[in-house]
């Protein structure tokens, strides 16, 4: 059955293709709107909700700084590095202690990547979260990040 094409902005179907590409790799990630002041989360995949224990409704629209994941052992230094990477639209990896909804904490390796639109403006961030107790996946991150920066690949 042919799909009737409506007036969908290219950027937004692009978000959908990123999501689908990324989601196959068993990732836990969020997508945030970089063009709005507090950089709100516009999407989180099921892997992310599973890891943290929050529902999508509780997560969407919150800032991608994820203050709701912070707790007593969360290093302010790590938080500052994340804030800086988002401000400067830099690709960066940070290790930080986060707290799940049930209060348990875990060490997280967080990778942030800015996504530029056709005009070269940073329109979104993709932020991947890895629970460092799942050590075997660590090496795969190196393959994943470069390929999402340049969507033409």
């Amino acid at each position: 059955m042919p799909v009737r094409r409506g007036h969908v902005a290219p950027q937004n179907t692009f978000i959908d293709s990123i999501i689908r590409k990324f989601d196959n790799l068993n990732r836990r990630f969020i997508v945030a709107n970089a063009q709005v002041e507090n950089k709100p989360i516009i999407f989180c995949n099921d892997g992310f909700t599973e890891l943290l224990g929050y529902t999508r409704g509780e997560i969407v629209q919150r800032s991608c700084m994820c203050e709701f994941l912070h707790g007593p052992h969360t290093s302010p230094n790590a938080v500052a590095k994340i804030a800086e990477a988002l401000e400067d639209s830099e690709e960066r990896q940070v290790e930080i202690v986060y707290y799940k909804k049930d209060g348990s904490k875990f060490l997280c390796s967080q990778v942030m990547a800015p996504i530029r639109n056709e005009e070269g403006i940073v329109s979104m961030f993709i932020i991947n979260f890895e629970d460092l107790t799942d050590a075997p996946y660590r090496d795969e991150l190196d393959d994943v990040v470069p390929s999402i920066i340049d969507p033409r690949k």
Partner: protein
Amino acid sequence: VLKGFPECLQADICLHLNRNLLENTSAFKGAPPGCLRALSMKFKTTHAPSGDNLVHRGDVLTALFFISRGTIEILKDNVVMAILGKDDVFGENPCSYSTVGKSSCKVRALTYCDLHKIFRDDLLDVLQMYPEFFETFSSNLEITFNLRD
């Protein structure tokens, strides 16, 4: 097609068609069987091709939508507020407000979507027949994105 069948058969068919939705959505857990049958008669399945507008800004929120397939985007002044997909719910919780609200955002299908829709009035009518379930439903209903302005 359904309208040609006797009512009890209609209810059974609807219950079957909407089974996935009713079984998997936590809001419906603990609903009396009669309530589930009545609700499943009121749900309508709709489809939207990519680019279709499901809700316009300012639209009265007469229905609650459950996404069973596909992704939708929610926009306010052309800014993407959220991207929702399978098992997500948008609209407003009809039990929480005495008056019906208006949508603060535009909702558009990003990819081809299958949706289950139920009108606020129909939902409230059924819930009023099962007052002991009303509270449970209202507090368990997870609206992924509340559209109310």
